[in-house]
């Protein structure tokens, strides 16, 4: 009798939980305007814990890197010194070139188009589920970060903000299965749509049939999706495979090495054109 009651109660609980989840999914699929309260609370709470956990891991890694893994440091120092000297010479040349290009920029009145405002952020955690490819950054709504803001790195596009809590945000990586961006093959100036594939690569789709895309072609954002400004590097064409029928599958290698990503820039006010010179850099 007691066992029967327990079983019934458990079944009722199971049904209640299932119905709860289904209702929860339904409300979001019908309207996904703002961030749900539960999501905001969970993100804030867990982001703080993740921040603390990453601080501990970072500390351990720092001890390892600074004390344990110091091998061949002298040789490395000498090699790096030589590289630094070479870079300094290169920098002198670049400065001279930059001065010239600055004059041209002023002449062409391009300054009016330099309208991006960005803020720097540090990556504090990775994805909590293998189904999603995302990162957690240490800037949130308090810093002016909002949903659907583009997140970039010096090498190119990182992704977009999907959840912005007060002090942290979740960023969907461009390689995630649900990620997409309007794109442009720079050499041909033909447009398509880049889609994340979940395996660390991107797919370029909806290209004109006559477009002669080749391996090595640079693919940049087209600026038509309302998220990513025009001209950001998405990656290079890695290879072209045959799809079903006469279609082609253009596979792109992303410009970003997501594994080494430590700090990113969030584009706060996206508009067409290249970024401002005085971007804030992460501390």
């Amino acid at each position, binding site marked *: 009798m007691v*066992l029967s009651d327990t079983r019934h109660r458990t079944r009722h609980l199971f049904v209640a939980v299932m119905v709860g989840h289904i209702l929860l999914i339904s409300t979001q699929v019908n309207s996904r305007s703002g961030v749900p309260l*539960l999501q905001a609370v969970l993100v804030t709470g867990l982001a703080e814990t993740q921040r603390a956990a990453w601080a501990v891991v970072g500390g351990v890694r720092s001890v390892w890197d600074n004390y344990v893994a110091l091998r061949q440091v002298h040789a490395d120092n000498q090699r790096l010194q030589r590289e630094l000297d070479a870079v300094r010479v290169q920098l002198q040349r670049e400065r001279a070139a930059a001065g010239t290009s600055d004059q041209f920029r002023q002449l062409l009145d391009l300054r009016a188009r330099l309208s991006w405002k960005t803020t720097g952020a540090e990556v504090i955690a990775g994805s909590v*589920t293998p*189904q999603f490819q995302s990162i957690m950054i240490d800037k949130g709504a308090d810093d002016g970060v909002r949903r659907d803001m583009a997140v970039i790195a010096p090498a190119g596009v990182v992704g977009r903000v999907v959840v912005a809590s007060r002090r942290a945000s979740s960023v969907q990586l461009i390689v995630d299965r649900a990620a997409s961006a309007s794109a442009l093959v720079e050499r041909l100036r033909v447009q398509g749509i880049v889609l994340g594939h979940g395996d*660390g690569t991107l797919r370029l789709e909806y290209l004109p049939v006559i477009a002669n895309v080749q391996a090595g072609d640079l693919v940049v954002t087209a600026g038509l999706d309302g998220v990513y400004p025009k001209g950001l590097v998405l990656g290079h064409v890695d290879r072209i495979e045959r799809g079903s029928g006469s279609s082609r599958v253009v596979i792109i290698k992303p410009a970003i090495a*997501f594994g080494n990503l430590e700090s990113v820039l969030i584009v706060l006010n996206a508009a067409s054109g290249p970024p401002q010179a005085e971007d804030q850099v992460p501390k």
Partner: protein
Amino acid sequence: MTALRVVAAIVVALILQSVVARLVGNGQVPVDLVLVSVVSTALLYGRVAGLLGGSLAGLAQDALSGGVLGIGGLANSVVGFFTGMIGTQFIVTQAVPRFLLYTGATAVHAGIYIGLSVLLGLRRFDRAFVEVTIQALANGVVGVLVFEIIDALPGTRQRWRARRERRRKIRFH
């Protein structure tokens, strides 16, 4: 106390998963430590703990990933509930049955998750079979290792025996 342990296990798994993903990079970690924790708690504490723990873990994953809240919750709840049920009906103390349970749970979880995502038009899952197979095997190995560690803790075997006796008494009551 059980609730506290379940919540602690899930929070630890969430943190470990995010740290591992951060270290590995690309977010392409084949193992789902949160799912492993749900299955483990369901085996240790029964179907109600599995159901509620799975629900909590899935919701947390959905919220932190920016996905639709409830899909991961539903998948994890189902897995937690039925794993807990299997854990109470059968003796799952050997490495092979445990491995099979973890791999099976991963397959069911993936089936629900991918099915719902595709049904609602949220995500594309090309070549999902390979990924799910790798994840199921990885979860199986990690799950068995987790239980090896739990078994090695002092007093665990006595607790297992006591719990089994208790369940047997309830069954024949």
